[in-house]
């Protein structure tokens, strides 16, 4: 294996080394002997943005199939073996990647590596229609439970669909549509695996109470013979103008408990200094109980029960800033929206105060410390920076970058991006249809979309 160990970067005593197997699998190791546990994390460079029309949800459905056995692992064997060894495990799918992870007692690390290698190299020997049909039903119930059967459950899907136009790789979310889930065939799943599940399309990180030399030997032994291949098509271009160019708006009349104002803003791509500045701007404006929107809407105007901003960092398309305001009873959305506009405009003009910068940076620093507090969190971050930015060491210095952003940069990104012509607005108006026995109407959607802006 071609060792390409790099100088050790440091962050709070954390270090990482990088290696590459001959088949292209990148490996990141980080030692920490404080607790006898070890985390294994595999990021495959495939997510819902790689899906094609008519097959939304395939990346996530496929992730479920990765737990249905492989050449040497029976049906639910992956779960049984890891849990039986005192480990924990899961997998998740997002727009840009699919990850699989185990945290094990340190003496069971080799088992987790063997399991991950077995499915990376031999999943198709076990994949059959029965498990596909079963997991299709499970995923449809996941969709119902998390999106369709909860108030405001489809808000994120609607905002995404507006912020990223029809045909854009990020127009649909990873859960996919019921119709597309129904349409997924065994051949789709096989083709998906053959295209994207290869050692040279993945990064493996191992973090914790490990012996790096032995760990690398195990990685070589179990993963080394899996052939790499280069059949992966380049992802569709996700670049978009930095602002939407005109406000998009959708009003949803549904049986929800209160009015709500939500909005998606296009923000700078992840990995840039501007993205960190945007994160700080959203934190000052809507991250926590001392934020401007909380103070204005919840404390002073009392028009909202909760008001906040979240950030979805993306590398292959503009990131998304997500505003979420749940109205107090009796409050009008127009009043809330006017107040939000006023706060955003004022912020774009004046920027953050020194005290606000200090608070926002302290909050983001603690969030970062939280993520690094577990070996699993560290393994995930190392994979993230390796897959998305080509350099895992960047994970260890991420917080320093956030602390270097200046107030003027924060003001500037707010002025450029947090503007009415760069947002997709979603308004919820309750139907108040709580009378028992009422006809179960389908949700009434009233799209007042201004189409064809930048699409």
């Amino acid at each position, binding site marked *: 294996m071609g060792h390409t160990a790099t100088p050790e970067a440091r962050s*709070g*005593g954390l270090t990482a080394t990088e290696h590459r197997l001959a088949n292209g699998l990148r490996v990141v190791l980080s030692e*920490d002997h*404080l607790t*006898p*546990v070890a985390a294994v994390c595999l990021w495959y460079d495939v997510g819902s943005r790689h899906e094609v029309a008519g097959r939304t949800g395939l990346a996530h459905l496929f992730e479920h199939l990765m737990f249905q056995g492989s050449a*040497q692992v029976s049906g*639910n064997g992956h*779960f*049984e073996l890891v*849990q*039986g*060894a*005192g*480990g924990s495990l899961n997998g998740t799918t997002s727009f840009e990647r699919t990850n699989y992870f185990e945290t*094990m*007692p340190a003496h*069971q690390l*080799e*088992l987790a590596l*063997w399991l991950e290698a*077995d499915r990376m*190299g*031999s999943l*198709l*020997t*076990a994949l059959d229609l029965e498990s596909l*049909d079963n997991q*299709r*039903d*499970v995923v449809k*119930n*996941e969709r*119902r*439970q998390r999106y369709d*059967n909860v*108030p405001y459950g489809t808000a994120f899907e609607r905002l995404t669909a507006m912020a990223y136009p029809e045909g854009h790789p990020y127009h649909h979310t990873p859960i996919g549509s019921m119709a597309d889930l129904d349409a997924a065939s065994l051949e789709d799943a*096989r083709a998906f695996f053959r295209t994207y599940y290869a050692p040279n399309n993945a990064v493996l990180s191992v973090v914790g*109470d490990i012996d790096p030399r032995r760990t690398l030997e*195990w990685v070589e032994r179990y993963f080394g013979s899996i*052939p790499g291949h280069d059949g992966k098509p380049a992802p569709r271009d996700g670049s978009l103008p930095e602002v939407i160019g005109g406000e998009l708006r959708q009003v949803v009349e549904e049986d929800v*408990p*209160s009015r709500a104002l939500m909005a998606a803003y296009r923000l700078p791509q992840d990995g840039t200094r501007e993205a960190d500045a945007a994160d700080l701007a959203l934190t000052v404006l809507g991250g*926590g*109980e*001392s934020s401007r929107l909380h103070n204005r809407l*919840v*404390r002073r105007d009392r028009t909202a*029960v909760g008001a906040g901003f979240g950030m979805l960092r993306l590398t292959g398309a503009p990131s998304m800033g997500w505003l979420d305001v749940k109205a*107090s*009873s009796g409050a009008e959305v127009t009043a809330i929206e006017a107040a939000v506009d006023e706060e955003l405009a004022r912020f774009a003009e004046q920027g953050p105060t020194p*005290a606000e910068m200090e*608070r926002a940076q*302290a909050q983001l620093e*603690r969030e970062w*410390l939280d993520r690094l507090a*577990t*070996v699993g969190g560290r393994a995930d971050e190392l994979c993230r920076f390796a897959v998305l930015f080509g350099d895992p060491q960047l994970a260890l210095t991420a917080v320093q970058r956030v602390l270097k952003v200046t107030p003027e940069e924060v003001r500037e990104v707010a002025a450029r991006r947090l503007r009415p012509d760069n947002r997709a607005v979603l308004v919820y108006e309750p139907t108040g249809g*709580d009378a*028992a026995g009422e006809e179960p109407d389908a949700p009434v959607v009233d799209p007042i979309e201004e189409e064809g802006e930048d699409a």
Partner: protein
Amino acid sequence: MTETATEMTLHPRPQAGQPKPWAFPAPERATLANGLTVLHCHRPGQQVVAVEVLLDVPLDAEPEGLDGVATIMSRAFSEGTDTLTAEEFAAELERCGATLDAHADHPGVEVSLEVPASRLGKALGLLADALRAPAFPDDEVERLVNNRLDEIPHEMANPARRAAVTLSKELFPADSRMSRPRQGTEETVARIDAAAVRAFYEAHVRPSTGTVVVVGDLTGIDLAAVLGETLGAWTAEAGAARPVPAIVADDTARVVIVDRPGAVQTQLLIGRTGPDRHDAAWPAQVLGTYCLGGTLTSRLDRVLREEKGYTYGVRAFAQVLRSAPDGTGASLLAISGSVATEVTGPALEDAWKVLRTLAEGGLTDEERDVAVQNLVGVAPLKYETAAAVAATFAEQVEQHLPDDFQARLYERLAATGTVEATAAVVNAFAPERLVVVLVGDASAIREPVEALGIGPVSVVKG
């Protein structure tokens, strides 16, 4: 039609290495001059320190008709002090990079602080001021009350929350605090004002009956001095002991449907009450409950999810409601999950089949072994963070358990046999003693559920 050949070299499954010793940490105890009990524990490398303050203010101390006053008081702790306004307090806390949460539950009020170790002293000062000298400003309390009133419809709209509220109402008599929502109802919350919050605080909140837990990397921190200057400066008069009402529950088998016309799924919550952690059979019940519904390879999900695809997942669990060494405590034993509307009847039928098969045939030795290996084996993972360790210390104190309860539990689990685990879980989830709450479309699910004969079915408005 599967592919048979694979190009990779297959190796036999590796054997485990030599386990490394790990033990659940033991806290050190101290008492401050004001009577506040201190539990602390140094966890190297844990840069975010977790602080938990437990106040001996159970929900049944709330005055009649004022359900929710403990919740409003808990939230109002962070709404200003004798020296800071509400906005200033929030700003100072966030300047430390800290988070502060407080919530009221049956055993008492718990205030949780998390803060980077470098700013622990500053944040403990703020926490101490919040508990020692809360301002409880009239207008901020009024706002919290209105916010709480606005939250209630959101909770009622959430199928899982709605099911939980309904099950409590079914299990416990109306005069029991446990029958009613922890955070109050629209009727009771509307009656709460700053005067009521202050009166409740004066009557029940004091350091002498409280405990503070501090866990994290305490390198270079003189904890005794920091605590002495902050929480140690809190004084209040001792209060009178309160009688604790007995817990009674009606677990006669029955089904209550909370009607949600058009719902695409049915939320299931199937439950009854059982003993708390003082019960000798607790470890056996933990083991058996894991085998029944602890994970996706447990008996319920093996059928409902992995064979039938009816659900994203169904879990069985025990949640302690109130704990007492004399055996008068109780926990909620429950099975929870959601299933597609059209398979609600078949899913419940399968669940009951799983319970009956378990009662007839018992657990296998292999199931028991895997469960022990998991429950004991995951301990070092589960307790990696300071917050996880602090939460368990706090739970032990709140439940009147010895400080080594969790450490001993791992030994007791390892010593529990298949027969004991079977007996405990079969006893806990006896099908003829389960109250079933279904939040879903009554017009679609009522008939198939009635046909199962698992208890009389009633429908309430959703």
